[in-house]
């Protein structure tokens, strides 16, 4: 058990510095872990809430008094899940080799630099003045770029895509996400109308009884 965890973590570490090799191992030799990926995703959502509230006052421009941690958490996590689902639906049509689990692993693993940058931001921003805010911004920037690079590399590897096709797939992913959101809203409104109809019929019935 301990060995297995250590192995998973070691591949997580490798994916940071050698994303192509590591994601190859994860995809084709089963070295990744869905549980670890899910944990990372949850950690990311929680850290977003934490950074919203606890980033130092100097650079924190959020309205902390009216913060809704649940909505922040869900926005980030559901947003990423939506990306995963729509990426999967696009790549299945475009000969992508990766399954849903693989995409989840790639997305979550590549969040690690961003998570580290967020942690850095939360801690350090409490001890800086406005002139030093650049340090935090640079670190967050590096984290973002790193994350994006890992994401691109990982998606290339698991789908066995070239760089160009990967970019096209990602653009289409956003289109698919928009369609999914549209359908979701449509279903919600339709269900709402249906429920309302049933309720009003019921009310009518009981009032006339």
């Amino acid at each position, binding site marked *: 058990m301990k060995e297995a965890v250590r192995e998973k973590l070691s591949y997580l570490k490798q994916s940071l510095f050698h994303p192509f090799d590591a994601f190859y191992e994860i995809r084709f030799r089963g070295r990744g872990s869905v549980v670890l990926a899910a944990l990372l995703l949850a950690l990311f959502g929680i850290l977003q809430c934490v950074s919203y509230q606890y980033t130092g*006052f*100097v*650079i924190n*421009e959020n*309205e902390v008094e009216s913060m809704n941690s649940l909505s922040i958490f869900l926005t980030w996590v559901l947003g990423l899940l939506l990306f995963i689902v729509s990426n999967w639906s696009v790549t299945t049509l475009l000969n992508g080799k990766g399954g849903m689990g693989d995409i989840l692993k790639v997305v979550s693993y590549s969040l690690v630099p961003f998570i580290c940058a967020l942690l850095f931001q939360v801690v350090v921003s409490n*001890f800086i*003045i*406005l*002139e030093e805010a650049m340090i935090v911004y640079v670190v967050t920037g590096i984290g973002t770029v790193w994350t994006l690079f890992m994401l691109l590399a990982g998606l290339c590897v698991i789908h066995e895509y070239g760089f160009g096709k990967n970019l096209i797939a990602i653009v289409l992913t956003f289109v698919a996400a928009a369609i999914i959101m549209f359908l979701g809203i449509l279903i919600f409104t339709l269900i709402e109308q249906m429920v309302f109809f049933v309720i009003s019929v019921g009310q009518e019935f009981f009032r006339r009884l």
Partner: protein
Amino acid sequence: MGRFLRDGSLKEKSLRDRNLRDTSLRKGLKRALKISLSLAAALGMALAPATAQASDGTSYVYDGYTYDYYGNAKESPAMFRLERTITAADAGGIAMSGVDDVCTSEDGRIFAIDTAESRMNVFGPDGGFLYSTKLVRTQDNKIALAEDGSQIMLTAPEGIFIHEKNREIYIADTGNQRIVVLDLDNYGLVRIIGEPEELAGVTQFKPSKLAVDFADRIYVVVQSSYEGILELTKDGAFSGYYGVNTPRVSLADYFWKSLASDQQKEKMTKTYAPSFNNITLDGEGFVMAVTYDLSAEDMVFRLNSKGKNVLREEGNTLVKGDIWSMNSDDPGSQFVDIAVTDYGTYALLDKNKGRIFLYNFDGELLNAFGAMGNLKGEFKNPTSLAWLGDKLVISDTMLGCIYILAPTAFGQAVLEGNESYYFGRWDEALGSFRKALDLNANYEAAYSGIGKNYLMKDEYETAMYYFKMGNNRTFYSKAYNGYRALWMEDHFLIIMLLFVLLVAAVVGSEIRYHKQSKEKQKAAMKRLNSRRGRAVE
């Protein structure tokens, strides 16, 4: 922390104040109903209990708001109350059909320009009628004649300016395309400035609003002129156009313009620089101007000698009045006039919603209040405003009246606080801002003000607390810088120790690593040697 707790009770206190006010209002209502002065009054009371007048005559139409750091409108108690209304009835039997510009002199006289009746009316500080003129007279009270022998009559004048230095009144006699200069004391004619001969450009000389600076230069605003403010020399000769008003360029326009050929471009509507609509001078002699042209990028200007806008906008919002609009065809605040105090606090008059916006020197919104409507103190078509000491004088041309607004206790505290801060009297400013906070705990400008004063006294921790309350990140950072430096000094030993430990740990691990790798190397060599030895054997 004890200090902070004490200040935390500020909020409770102001809540209590508000409750008190509410109960007193309710009491007032009850009394009004009991006495039932008239059915109409009771009806009006019942219909609009919150915004109408209480039975004691107190008007709540000037209850205002400010914006917090996040752009939320925060309610604020009234900074001004209606002290007096000057109407045609006060004009000593002289017809007064509108007031298009007001101006005050230092001795407290109020000068009002009536465009429709072509008159200048003068009132005393208490609102009493002093003088009115249409036909200009000479210093010894004879009828003044122009060079061609005609009588000098004002024709649809639009603007007036009091030049205290030379004790002169400048009237923009728009209909006659000239500026009439009168004496401030006996209202006699001093001189007439006609259209300058060497006037360049396409602007017609139709002076509408004007201002005269310390060096007697005359700045003239011509409505709908896109060339800027006309600058005249002391003698009325043309010296140039002054001030740039840049139009807002939309990305779509830019895109289509870049595609169009020269011929197409000629046919497109030209974007002209927006005109200035009103002008005044601040305490330091800078020209301040406003525009309500919708295509203008800036609405308020503080022009330096080169004509560049150097208005300070360090507050929570930009100096543009209302920052939200309720619907797409709401053009936002449209400023018709600006009035500046000696300490840089200025009031802007919005003709769109009948609001007055008060900003301090730094561009922090102090209060926004006023409304269009039919209640006493509300506006129909506000045209002009001026400071009369701490009081505001506001004219409305459709109502044909002048309101004199006196500051309330809250307004007094805010104005005094800003004045003391501007002149560097820290302790006084602190007291005034505290008073303002007692009356309005939502007031970020006052929290910032208190913080700034503590910062000046190097009390960093307290300053930080107030800057946090006031959501002022720039100054919080300044205070924190001082606080951190002090903390580092106090805890120098611990920091140094931690640093040394860290260095030791790094060096130690490096040495250990080096040793280990050396041993590994030795072992490897040994193995190699032994294998080689075996091979030799």
